[in-house]
């Protein structure tokens, strides 16, 4: 009997607590963001917003990045959507075309901040002339190189390579140092890492990767074959660690900071990370080159923030977007954390001036590209897609490169045409 009373008391107390707690929770905006992206940056942005808006805080939930697209799609199908959605920018067009995002054009048309917002993010946030999102954070790829290893290999640490043949030449010398040191890094099982760091080598060499339209030609130009041949030769020459073949992206961001890699295509996020991992390592940053000296390119990636159809807090969500683009957030949150600002006119700030490496990597924004396709995941980002299959065959097999490229082309065309 006493147990029953005690149980009833406990239930009543729990009920009361729930009644008190629920209204407070109900006022929070719900936001989803993919994991595996720049979580530190998003956490800081949300914390800054929550500090300024205690009556409409954001409750942030991370979704595993490989599950983000299906999770959003399921939420849309079931009507249980969050108020804000941070998504990998390359998925923007797919969801915009499907009519699943709130059209914010009329609500934000007078914002002056949009004029200087990162172009790649704005392009993928736009569908048929209407705007569906704004930049959440930006990542750009560049060539990171270990100056300590350059010195040991007799290379000038102030002269990074400016062409693929120079990368090869430098990598050979660094690998010759022996031990566990290798000249370069190519991720063997990560589609995303390769579109971020290998596709720019192709773009810089004058080639295209994704089809620009449903019936467009993918993998166009000699640059594709030249880069694949270069990568195959680099691996055969032993310039890449053997376990790079199994790199699925899980440890990609930790590779450069290990201090065992001479050069590597990676992103701006690696500046802070490499310093934390290996404080004594001296490293430099250059633009990813093409076949010829002077050719450069980069991938402008990152996330956009959107509002899914069905969100009950559209006005609050729009306010959060405005907050992201404000001068204060750009400088005191993005720049202070040494992340790229999402507005081009905010790169001249005290934090960047104190850190030349960030200024160096920021140069990549000017030459960066962002693919625009309605089927990016299936075509490029999927570990099972034709892009990674093509790279794996080129990296690790001896099959004729023309055959590999033409088969990948056929697969990409079939997917794009569906």
């Amino acid at each position, binding site marked *: 009997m006493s147990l029953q009373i005690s149980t009833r008391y406990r239930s009543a107390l729990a009920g009361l607590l729930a009644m008190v707690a629920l209204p407070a929770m109900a006022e929070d905006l719900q936001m989803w963001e993919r994991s595996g992206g720049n979580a530190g940056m998003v956490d800081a942005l949300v914390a800054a917003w929550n500090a300024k808006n205690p009556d409409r805080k954001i409750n942030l939930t991370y979704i595993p990045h*490989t*599950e983000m*697209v*299906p999770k959003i*799609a*399921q939420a*849309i*199908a079931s009507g249980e959507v969050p108020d804000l959605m941070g998504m990998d920018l390359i998925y923007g067009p*797919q*969801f915009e075309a*499907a009519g*699943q995002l709130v059209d914010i054009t009329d609500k934000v048309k007078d914002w002056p901040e949009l004029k200087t917002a990162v172009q790649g993010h704005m392009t993928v946030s736009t569908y048929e002339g209407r705007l569906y999102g704004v930049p959440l954070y930006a990542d750009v790829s560049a060539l990171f190189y270990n100056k300590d290893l350059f010195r040991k290999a007799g290379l000038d640490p102030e002269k990074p390579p400016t062409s693929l043949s120079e990368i090869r030449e430098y990598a050979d010398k660094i690998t010759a140092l022996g031990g566990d040191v290798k000249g370069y890094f190519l991720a*063997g*099982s990560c589609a995303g890492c390769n579109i971020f760091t290998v596709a720019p080598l192709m773009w810089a060499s004058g080639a295209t990767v994704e089809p620009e339209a449903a019936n467009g030609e993918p993998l166009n130009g000699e640059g594709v074959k030249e880069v694949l041949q270069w990568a195959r030769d680099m691996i055969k020459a032993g310039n890449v660690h*053997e*376990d790079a*073949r*199994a*790199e*699925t992206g899980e440890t990609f961001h930790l590779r450069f900071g290990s201090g065992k890699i001479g050069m590597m295509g990676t992103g701006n996020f690696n500046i802070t990370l490499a310093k934390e991992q290996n404080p004594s390592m001296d490293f430099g940053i250059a633009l990813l080159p093409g076949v010829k000296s002077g050719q450069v390119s980069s991938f402008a990636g990152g996330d956009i923030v959107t509002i899914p159809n069905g969100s009950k807090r559209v006005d609050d969500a729009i306010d959060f977007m405005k907050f992201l683009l404000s001068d204060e957030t750009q400088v005191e949150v993005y720049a202070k954390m040494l992340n790229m600002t999402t507005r081009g006119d905010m790169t001249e700030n005290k934090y960047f001036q104190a850190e030349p490496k960030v200024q160096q990597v920021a140069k990549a924004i000017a030459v960066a590209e962002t693919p625009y396709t309605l089927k990016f*995941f*299936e075509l490029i980002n*999927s*570990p*099972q897609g034709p892009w990674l*299959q093509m790279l*794996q*065959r080129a990296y*690790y097999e001896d099959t004729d490169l023309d055959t590999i490229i033409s088969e990948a082309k056929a697969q990409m065309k079939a997917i794009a045409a569906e």
Partner: protein
Amino acid sequence: MHSKTSSYVGLLYVAPALAFVLTFTVYPFAQMVWMSLHNWSLIAPKKYIGFGNFVKAWNDPQVWTSLEFTLKYTLFITPILMILGYLIALLTAENRPLRQFTRSVVFAPVVIGLGASSLLWYWLFSYDFGLINRALIDLGLIARPVVWFGADADISMWAVIASIVWKVVGFGTILFVAAIHAIPGEIGEAAMVDGASYWQRVRAITLPLTAKTILLVTLVSVIGSLLAFDQFYIMTAGQPRNLTATSVFLIYLNSFPYLKLGYGAALSLILAGIILVCTFLQMLLSRRSHA
């Protein structure tokens, strides 16, 4: 009149079970069949395409690659699970403290989630930090670390098989032990009086009298292997080049990341048909061997 009333009463008795089956088995299955006849995306309106998804599956080389790999995996892992499980059961069947303890140890991994155990083995097989490479090098069996996942499909498959054998062999063992315990002791004693050796008794008495359990464990193992997903999703991600993408992996990939629910449903139906045929053949063979 009386019989009509009693049949209504009978129907009333089975109504809850019937409602359960209709709601949770028949309706989802019918929905899946309906879905398979459509171009059905999670985020766009559906479109009826008849048997288009099935035609597409027939012409999709990845479907055949995945099916071939799944069958290969099943063919390799099933005998290992059966033979090893049975041998451990024979070793630990007697109810003595040490043998009971051994049985518990072998069974323990069965209660761990497949996701957790796959993650555990993923790191055990890690190139840099894994215990397996370290142990093999220290034992002098290999000179340098092996890239277990992502490089060679066969090596990846055997690594996964090792992890799954560790994970599920205890399940078969426990069922075999229960079946061995159910054999009346007098039969074995009579055989011993007649001078039958241990292995003769196993062959002539234990194996035939536990045949039904062997069939059951084989069926469960084959079906489980044909439906393999978690272990490959976590440990190989289908790499290299989709050569370790099992059939269920392909269904998942199409249904969710690619948002092609209709195609995924068609692939699910095809796999369900294959499993049904395998089960039927297995039962048929078993009945014939009994006859």
